[in-house]
Every structure is written in C-alpha cells, then in structure tokens.
C-alpha cells in the first residue's frame, strides 16, 4: 500500500495533512484501517474541543475490537467528518480521502511526526 507523500504520519497510525490557514486534516492510515478490519462505529471529538498531541480524542470500533483514536497534534477541532460517522466503512474504503476524521487548528505539533517513507518503514517493521 502506498502512503501519500504530501502527508505526515504519527506512530499511532494517524495521518496529518499540510496546514491550510493553520488547519490540518487528520485520518487513520490504510495500514491501520486494514489492521482494524471493518470499522463499524467511530466516536469523534466535537467541534470546539481542545485536543492534545498523543492523547485519546475518540474511538474506532471494528468487528473484533475497539481502538482509541489519538490526535497527532495539539489544537482545536474545527470540523468533524459527519459522513464517516454515518458510514464508518469509509475509513476502510477511502482512509486517505472520504474517510478523513477531523480537522484541527494546530497550536503545537510534536517533533516526531514521520514522512511517508519513514512511516512506510515504521509500519512494515
């Protein structure tokens, strides 16, 4: 699977888009979506919530398990993807596109976000 080079990645398998007007989009990677299996429920943060890098801000429930959703950066939630709330399978079918999870106005980001190549190596190991 190929990880888009325009994105950066966390070791918790989230991706983060380049900021536009200070706002980045967050989702989970195809690698993570495949590992979860069919996603059936997502609980996302609410618009206006403050999130902290590396801390839980929601849940992803699949057929077999429930996983915490982490934010790769700190900031304020500006938008959540209602489409994915209504149809969680978008996380599996289009993890880097229609299956995005939330947008965040970034106040601080950790220094250990990975490039696509670094993440590909990380997730393979």
């Amino acid at each position, binding site marked *: 699977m190929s990880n888009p080079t325009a994105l950066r990645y966390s070791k918790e398998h989230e991706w983060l888009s380049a900021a536009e007007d200070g706002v980045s989009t967050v989702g989970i990677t195809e690698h993570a979506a*495949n590992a979860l*299996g*069919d996603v*059936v*429920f997502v609980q996302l943060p609410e618009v206006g919530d403050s999130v902290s890098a590396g801390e839980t801000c929601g*849940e992803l*429930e699949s*057929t*077999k398990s*429930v996983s915490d959703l982490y934010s790769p950066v700190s900031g304020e939630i500006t938008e959540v993807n209602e489409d994915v709330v209504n149809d969680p399978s978008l996380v*599996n079918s289009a993890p880097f596109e229609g299956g995005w999870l939330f947008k965040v106005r970034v106040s601080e980001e950790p220094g250990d976000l990975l490039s696509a190549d670094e993440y590909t190596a990380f997730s393979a190991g």
Partner: protein
Amino acid sequence: MSSTGELRHTALDALHRSLGATMTDFAGWDMPLRYGSERDEHIAVRTKAGLFDLSHMGEITVTGPQAAALLDFALVGNIGGVKPGRARYTMICRADGGILDDLIVYRLGETEAAASEYMVVANASNAQVVLDALTERAAGFDAEVRDDRDAYALLAVQGPQSPGILKSLTDADLDGLKYYAGLPGTVAGVPALIARTGYTGEDGFELFVKPEHAVELWQALTKAGEGVGLVPCGLSCRDTLRLEAGMPLYGHELSTSLTPFDAGLGRVVKFEKEGDFVGREALREAAARAEQQPPRVLVGLVAEGRRVPRAGYAVVAGGEVIGEVTSGAPSPTLGKPIAMAYVDPAHAAPGTSGVGVDIRGSHEPYEVVALPFYKRQK
C-alpha cells in the same frame, strides 16, 4: 502474538497466504482471520457460499468393542443411541459438572454390524484437554482413544449454494444426508467424510480429508463455486455467523465454571442412559438447583445504537449489574450490534425494558430478545 512458541500451520497455509489472508494465532494455530472484508465474507455465507479451513479442530478417534460404552461414561450424552452415519452435539464435563468442552461425535461405519468407530471433534483450544480426559477415562474399557489431529484436514462449505457446489463434485447421496449426519464418500476424487454440519446457521458441509488432499479439494471447491459466489472465509466471519445463529462458543458462553444447566443446555445431559458417567452426581444437583433457583439465563441483546458490546461488559438495569456479555459483535444481517449475555431471570424475558450494556462507562440501551438472532428459511 503466541507466547507458547511456534505456531502450527494447516495443510492449506501456503494457499491462504497466496490469497492474501490476514492470519491470526488461534489456539496455537496460524489461521486465516479474513481474506478481505469479514462483513462481505459473512454475507456471502448467508446468501451464497463460503469456504473455510477448520483444520485446527481436534479429531479424536475412539474404536473398539466398548467404544460406545466408554463415550457414554466419559460424556454427558447418550452416545450408544447414535445410529451409524449420524452425529450428535454433546459435552464432556468434569466430575464437578463444569464443562470441559462441547463436542460433536460422529458415529462412523455404514452398518450396525460394522465395528464401532466414533470420531470426536473437539474445539482447537480444548483438543488436548479432551484427549487427556478421554484417555484417562478409557481405563478399564476395551476401547482405544487415538489422537487423530494430524490425520485430518477439515474444510467447510457453508451457505445456501453449498449443496449445489458439492453435488457437482461428488456422487454421494447428499439429498439423503440429513443435518447432523455424515457419510464416507469421494469429493473431487478425494476420499472424505462428508458431514452435514457447520457452525454458521446455514446449510452446509464439513469435509474431513487427509491433509495431503486438502489443497486439491480446496481448489476443486473454489472452481466449482466460481459461478455461484463462493468466497474463502476466515474465522472472523465464522464468529459473527455463529453469534447470529445463537450458537455457544467455548470460552465465552461455556466454561469449566458453568454446568450445562447453567448454560441453558441441560437437555444435552442424558440421566436416563445406562451406567454411570463422569459428572452424574454433580449434574443431578445442578439440575435440581436450576429448578429451585433458576440461574442466569443466556439471552440475546440487540443494540438501539451503534456501539458494540464486548465479552465481559456488564449488563445493567436500574443502575444495577444484572448480567454479563459473553459475546458481542456488529451483526451484518441485522445491521446492528448484537450480543449474547447471561442475565438474571427477572430481566431475561424478551422485551424486558430498561436493560442496557455498560460500554466503557456509558449505559447504552439494549433490547432483550430470544435466541437465535437469525434463523435460516428452509
């Protein structure tokens, strides 16, 4: 993954990998969890057909003049009453009545006169425990207990298209083969014990074959099922299929801490059979206790929302814990999360209001329903 060292591999291992299966450690075996989407695999079994590798199941052969007598002593069912070519669902219990495993016992041999031979099929996780118990209980009987785990690969074809698929590959009389029956035959040129059993709630067949024939048979079944939607299926969808069908799973609905009466399966205990059997006294007491003071009842729960109950979650009503979830999953057929749970009898009637499941601190509403969730139309 496994803490016990090397995983065991079935005869179909390379084939699973070539199909891109996600593999998982299941009772020490490296088994296919799913090939693609477990939801699609589930729906294929309900509407068309699915092909499973179940070679991790534990086969134990019991032969000899007193094979039936041994099994009647060792198990809670009436095995002596099983006709040749038929199979029976039963259990093996400890002396204290706790369930060691649930089993299917096939009586092999085509005629009443043929020497007694039975195949006991145990859950993969309990195969050694069952083998040890049967071996120990065989003392004093003129019968042999043989570990045949390595002698068989097991393939299952399940779903409404499975009779058609199998018919195209065998001359065996499938129309004459009833549910819970097995007959020796040849499928795609491979000698097989063909059993009309499964664990999916659908019509289907389980094919016990020599491991060296497994790949050939898998490929023949795949080819025969090509035009009717047969897909390879993993253990993940097998679990949601059996859950919808209300079938118990050892380690979830069944355990050594429950007797068959606590599990609502007291009917499998046959007190009327001749002779003593392991657990008889304790099970008598368990039956009497269940009558006096009904134990928690295994019920179905259907979610109103979308959060999935998991094994071990508390069932609540009026702020009190009234039970525990034993298995839960999103149901592809119902389109909602479902669960099996043991609940206090006062809350067990279908339609009981005010029942919820504590899902990580939040009490989500659930409807109490009778099991199974799904029953196929015949």
